[in-house]
Every structure is written in structure tokens, then in C-alpha cells.
């Protein structure tokens, strides 16, 4: 009887193992996106902003190659990322504020690093010129030791949020790469 019972237990285990060896994990939340996010601080607060009408729209952009040869081509080939989405004049981060937050989602495949992260301002009201580098002015960059003359690269880890705080000083803009 003991042998029979042992045989039964072995069969139960074998059957269970056979059944569950084919199991996958089932549904699960998709992995978090790779993002670059942070706060943009404007030196001098609202009072530090340049004249109202001159800021058409405001974005944060990250470039795999720097300086970019062609912004549109870089975006289409997955080598430039920006927020907010949509290349229209109306798409903008908050303007005339003390500070604001931003979040750039980096789609897969995630590049190993981005060479240049900047707060950029559209200065042209002509929608046909929105893709031209000359329509944009760099207001602040991700830099080493707060030196806005020296852009810094950021190594990216997939499915990770990378915190990058940016500072904009309208009275001390970084070098204009475009």
C-alpha cells in the first residue's frame, strides 16, 4: 500500500510538472518606458523671462548626435526626442512660470546615450519653418558642473527614468549650436 501511495504521489507530481512546465507568465504590466524627466527652473522667476511675445513655444529636446545635421531627419530616424509631442506651433511647455516639469519618452530601441539635452524656444511664427534649426534658440542645456557652456552626454538605461534638471537664465544663454 505504501508503494502504491508513493507511486500515486510521483504520478501527481509528474502530471503537475508536465502541466505547468508549459505555463508562461500570463499578462503583466508592460515595462516602464525609458524617460528623461525633471524640472526646468527659470532664473529670476517670472520676472526673469524675456518679453512675452517673443516666446512662441517651448520644448525640451534630446539628441543622440550633436550637433544635429537635420532636425526632421534626426526625429524620423529615432535620434532626436522631444516634449511635448506634435511638431506644431501650439505645442509648448508652460511659459512665463517660475519653474515647470517635463518628461521625454524614449521609444525602443533605446539608444545607449544622448549627447545633448536642451530647453529650446521657437522664435519663428511661420509654421513652415518650424523644422529649421534657425527657428529655434537654445535656452538651457544639460551640462557638467552647471557650466552651460559645456554640454554633457547622458547614458541611458532602458526602462529607467533619468532625472535631469535644467536651468534657464535668459540673461546668460548657452552657446547656440544651430
Amino acid at each position, binding site marked *: *500500500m505504501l508503494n*502504491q*501511495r508513493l*507511486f*500515486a*504521489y510521483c*504520478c*501527481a507530481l509528474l*502530471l*503537475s510538472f508536465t*502541466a*505547468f512546465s*508549459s*505555463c*508562461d*507568465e*500570463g*499578462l*503583466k*504590466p*508592460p515595462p516602464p518606458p525609458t524617460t528623461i524627466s525633471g524640472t526646468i527652473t527659470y532664473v529670476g522667476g517670472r520676472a526673469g523671462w524675456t518679453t512675452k511675445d517673443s516666446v512662441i513655444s517651448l520644448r525640451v529636446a534630446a539628441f543622440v548626435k550633436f550637433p544635429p545635421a537635420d532636425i526632421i531627419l534626426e526625429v524620423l530616424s529615432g535620434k532626436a526626442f522631444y516634449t511635448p509631442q506634435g511638431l506644431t506651433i501650439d505645442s509648448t511647455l508652460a511659459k512665463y512660470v517660475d519653474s515647470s516639469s517635463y518628461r521625454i519618452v524614449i521609444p525602443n530601441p533605446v539608444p545607449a546615450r544622448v549627447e545633448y539635452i536642451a530647453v529650446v524656444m521657437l522664435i519663428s511664427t511661420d509654421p513652415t519653418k518650424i523644422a529649421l534649426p534657425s527657428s529655434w534658440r537654445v535656452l538651457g542645456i544639460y551640462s557638467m558642473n552647471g557650466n552651460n557652456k559645456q554640454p554633457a552626454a547622458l547614458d541611458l538605461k532602458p526602462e529607467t527614468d533619468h532625472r535631469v534638471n535644467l536651468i534657464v537664465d535668459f540673461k546668460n544663454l548657452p552657446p547656440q549650436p544651430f
Partner: protein
Amino acid sequence: MKYYLLIGRTSLAIALFLTIVLSAAFAQTGIIKGTIKDAETAETLAGATVKIEARQTGAVANPHGVFVLRGVPAGAYTLLTTSIGYEARKIAISVQSNDTTFVTITLKSQLLKTNDVVVSAGKRVQAVQDVPVSITTVGQRELQQRGITRLDDALRYVPGVNMNRDQVNIRGSSGFSLGFGSRVGVFLDGFPLLSGDGGDAKFDALPMFNVERIEVVKGAGSALYGTGALGGIINVITAQPTETPEFRFRGFAGAFTKPRYEEWRWRETLPFLGGADASYSQKIGDVGVLIAGGYKRSEGHQAYYENAQWNGLAKLSYEASQNTSLNFLFNYAAEDRSNWVYWKSLSAATLPPDGTNREERFKSYKTTAALDVRHIFSDGFFMTARAGVFATDFKTVTPTQANNTNITSAANSWNGEAQFTSIVDSTLLFTYGATATLNAIVESPIIDPSVGKITQRIVAAYVQGEYKPLAGMTITLGSRFDGEKTSNLASSGVIVNPKFGISYQLSEETQLRASAGAGFRAPTIAERFAALRYASFTVQPNPTLRNERSWSFEIGGKQAFKLFGEDWNVDGALFWSEYDDLVEPRLPSPSNPQIQFVNITRARIQGVEVALNGWLPGKTLGIETSITAINPRDLNLDQVLKYRSTVLWYSRLILPIGAFQIQADYRFQSRFEQIDDLTAIITNADARVPIHILDVRVIANMAQIAGLPMLLTLNVRNALDYYYNEIIGNLAPTRHITLQVDMKF
């Protein structure tokens, strides 16, 4: 209408003729008296039933296991004996005139599915090995052990059957159509239980605590059961009032466990679920009564997903004379639950989408009242007549709003049937009858108001002959004739659904069967006329829908054999169904989520099903396993039909250890290959996986441990905490653990 009247008059004339002829045929009678015992323990089995096969004569064993059949005409008979939890047994017996035949019948305890008696295949009591179609029964013991509180939960373990949430699918016959228009007929003690508006099954409406067994007939059942039985039928048989007073109680309580993923944890504490059922049953003289009630509550495995259910059952039986009995059944069920269907996203799968009215409640009420009368005109001619109503009512309500009722629909489905069985001789038997159904909308703003008050009338007659040309062989031939008319739409004309079947019991161990049958389904009122919003969708009416039609074929067989010195059984079937004009919900485009039911599909479903059960040596481990492989093709699109799994594999292990029993149920269902593209409406709508579900339970028989009439069951459902969805964008129940107490006095 003249046509239907003609059928009614013809049936009546035949019935009267046979009454006179057959009453005169039997005059010399004897008595059968016997005792029914457990084959292993020799304990007498109170409540066991004995029937003379193919006849209406039967008896129930008294508290001492003794039964008496009086007035049995002299001759040779087969006694069919059944008792809950035991294998059915057939015994040949001979009755002499003016004499008493004594018999002792022993029954084997049934832990696995083996021999059983069924009433659904031929609308009369038959041993399962005599029917020509695939049929599976789920007994009271299985329901009790699994802690089943809803019919759909019971069906998830039946070979070849799966649930697409509220829609039952037998061998690929049904996909997902928002719950409208069931292709499987659902019956309560033979009384139809599809709603009058949507033609859908209400799985919470059935009194599962008082179910004696569930019979699932696979393949076209329309030949005897009419519209809605295209893919098969499910007949829920309730328990009869007991000979001696019996009080039963079941209580359970437990909780859903914490989700594995942080993103899906929506509350700090574990969501509760629990409930209680109680029933009292007694027979006093000729009157039997069974009353029952229950309450269940669940806080749900998702946020804002709680629900509460109430139900009550009253069953009265009255033996008016030796030849006439009446049964009245009243069943009521209510549900109050939150009302969201699709998740916010796969990342937030336990939350409703932003903008969902989280206070909205879905309230539904289901009432069944049915009376059946059985009369034995003579031993070879008897009648069952039943009539009743299935009333359904639902509404969505936001309690905090002034004008708080959003959607509402109430409908009645009235049904009447008269069925006759005539035994010509020991080789020939006829079953025939007529039915009438009236589906009427009581109140339904969801129905297109321009149409006015809508009713659907279906009148039918059926006849089936069973002929036994050889010992063990039964040939079945029959047909049903339906006529359907919905309000001002044109009549369907006469819809003819023939059926043919043959079963051959080659030996006690071997049975072969083959069947062919036509089926149909008339579109429901809701499919034709509903204009409503359902979750993110808008449903548009389509009065031009045509009937769905089908032809189903099957060959199969059963074989009993010895393995490891124990009894084993294998059942196999090859099946083939052709469908025309299947009604499916069609989305015009992903960006325009308007649903309209249309005759969109011609389909073919071929498949094979094999079920095996038996014991390892010394009855140390019981094994049940079944696999169903299906090739469901949409012939118009030349692709797999939507929402169909191509492989179903269900298994159960039973490990008895003294007073304890450990059971494990494993269900595998392959991933849907085709679904609707709803990604523009529902985030991550394309997320789906194969289904692997393991349920584990430990049952302690307290009668053996402490002498108490009690079973304690620790039930772990979805023990692997496997995450899956049965419908688009809705996480199926996660792991939950309950402790259940069953008592009987």
C-alpha cells in the same frame, strides 16, 4: 397560425388514440420490491431512485433504502437505479403477474465521471451509454467541492466548454457578442431560461446550491429544443424534496490575494468575498417542499468591482395520484454590482478608464415561475406538460444623481410545452410534443422607439422515434418544426430541423455512437432592435437579420477497461459543424465604434475530443483529463473564427488521504488567434495570453474526524495567480482563497 393549430389538434388526436389502445394492453400486474445499498460499505441508500427504463414508473428509496414499485405489468424490464454520488446501474428483471419480485441493488461510489443517467438528450430518462450524442454531467458533489455559486463557474470545468465571460461556448460554437444571443440553450428542469430581450443566459439566476446535476449536451440540440440550441444545451436539474426532513447549509469566506505587480495593487487590505446558502427540504404525505436562499458578496479583484447577489428558491411537489404529479418551481435572483467592463490599460489593469462613472451600479433581477404536470395515462403512454415565465429586468443606476436611471430593460419569456411519450413495444418508442414561446418586452428604452411594442413568437412541434433493432442498439430519428414571428417583421415560415442518431452498446465496456442534426437560432429582439451604449460602444439596430442555421455531425465511442487493476474509461468523439448566416457584432472601423449585429459569417468547425478517467492502484490517485482540439474556420474570411481557442485541456487529480481529500483542477485554453481590433478604443486591447488555471482544494470530512455532519473545504482558486483575460481588456479573477463549511442535518 392555422398550421400550428393543425399540429396541436393532430398531437391531441394521437395522444387520445394511444391512451385508449395502450391502456387496454396492460392488465396483469406484479410488484417489484427491493433494497439499495452502497457496494462497498453495504449502507442502505435513502433517496436513491429506481426507474423502469423507457417508462414513467419509478420510486424513491425510503430512509431504510427500500423501494416498492406496484402495478407493474408482467414482463421483462431493465431497472435503472441512481443516487447522488454513485454510478448509475442497470439491472434486468422479470415481473410475474400477481407476484412480488425482490431485488437488492448495490451501487458503486462515484468520485469520477462514469455512468450516469440523463434526461436532456432525448427529453426522457436514459442511461448515458444509450444516447447517441456527447453528453457530460456535473454532479452535486463536484459542485459542492469546487464551491460553485454560479453556473458559468461550473461550466468552466466541462470538457469542450469554455466561457467568454458571460457567453458559453461549446466546442467553438460561440465567440463573443456582448452577451446577446446565446448559441447554447439553457434550461432549468427542462424549462427554457434565455432572456426575452437579449436571448442571453443569466448565469447568476440558477439556484446552484440546490442543483442535483447539470447536463451538457454537445452538438446541435435544436431538433428537440429549438432556437438557441445551435451549439448544444445545458440543463440544470434541481434537487427534489427529500423523503425525510433535511437542512443544508453552506458558508464560505475568504479573500483575493495581493497582486504580484505593484502597478495592479489598488488597495491596502485584501478584498473580501464570502456568502452563505441554506435550504430545507421535506416531504409530508403527497406534498414535498424545498425552500432555499442565499447571499454572496465580493469586493472584487479590481477597483470599483464589488458585487452582491441574493437568491431564493421554492419548489413544491404534489403527488396528486399514483399517476399524476405536479411540480412548481419559483426562483428569484438579484444582483447589484459596479458597472465597468474594460481596464484603463494593461499598466493599470485593475482600474477602470479615466472618466468612468465609478458610482454607477448595474442592478438585475431574474424571476422564474414554472409548473410542470406529469401524468401517466398507462404504463406505456405518459405526458409532461410545463408552462411558465422567465422574467428579467436590469437597469444601470447612479444613486447620487437625481435622474439616476441610465439604461433599463425588462422582458418576459413565456413558455409552454406538452410532451408525450408512447411505447409501442419493447423496440419502438415515440416522443412528441408541441411548444410555444412568447418573448415580450415589458419596458426597454434601449429598444428602438420607432418600432413600438415588440414581441417574438415561436411555435413548434417535434417528434422523435427510437427503435431498437438489435440488443444494445438504438436508432433515433426525429425532427422539429419551428415557426418564428417578430412583431411586424415577416414570418420565418416553417423551419425544419431533422436529427438522426445511432448508439450501439457492443458490450458492457464498449459503446459506439453517431449523430447528425440540424439547428437554428432566431435573432433575438435585442440583436434586431437594440439601440444603446455598452461600455465604449454604441449598438445600432438591424431588423433585417436572418436565422442562423447549422448542421452538426459526430461519431464517437466509449470504452471501459482495466488498468493497474482499476476501472478506467475513455470517451472519444470526432465532430464537424457547418454554420450559415452566423450573427456576429461588426465594428464598421476601429475609429468608429458602432456595433451592428449582422449575418456576417459562414463557418466550419471540425474537431476531436478525448476524455479519460480512472484510478491508480489501490484508488490512491484519481485522474480525469480531457482534451478538445478544434479547427474553427471563418469561411468568408478564410481565417480562424474570432474569440475561439483551438485547444482546451482540462484535468483533475483526486488524492484521498484518510478523512482528507486533496483535489487539483487544471485548465488550459490556447490563446485566441483572432479578436476584433479595438486598440483605438481600449488601451492594450490586443493583450491576451493562453489560459493556465490551477485550482487546489483540501477537503476534510468532519464526520470521519469528529463525528460531525460537516465538510470543511479550503479552496484556492487560480492558485498560480496566473493573469489572463477571457474578454478583451478585462483581467479575469486573480488568486482567491476561501474556507467553506458544508453541513447537512
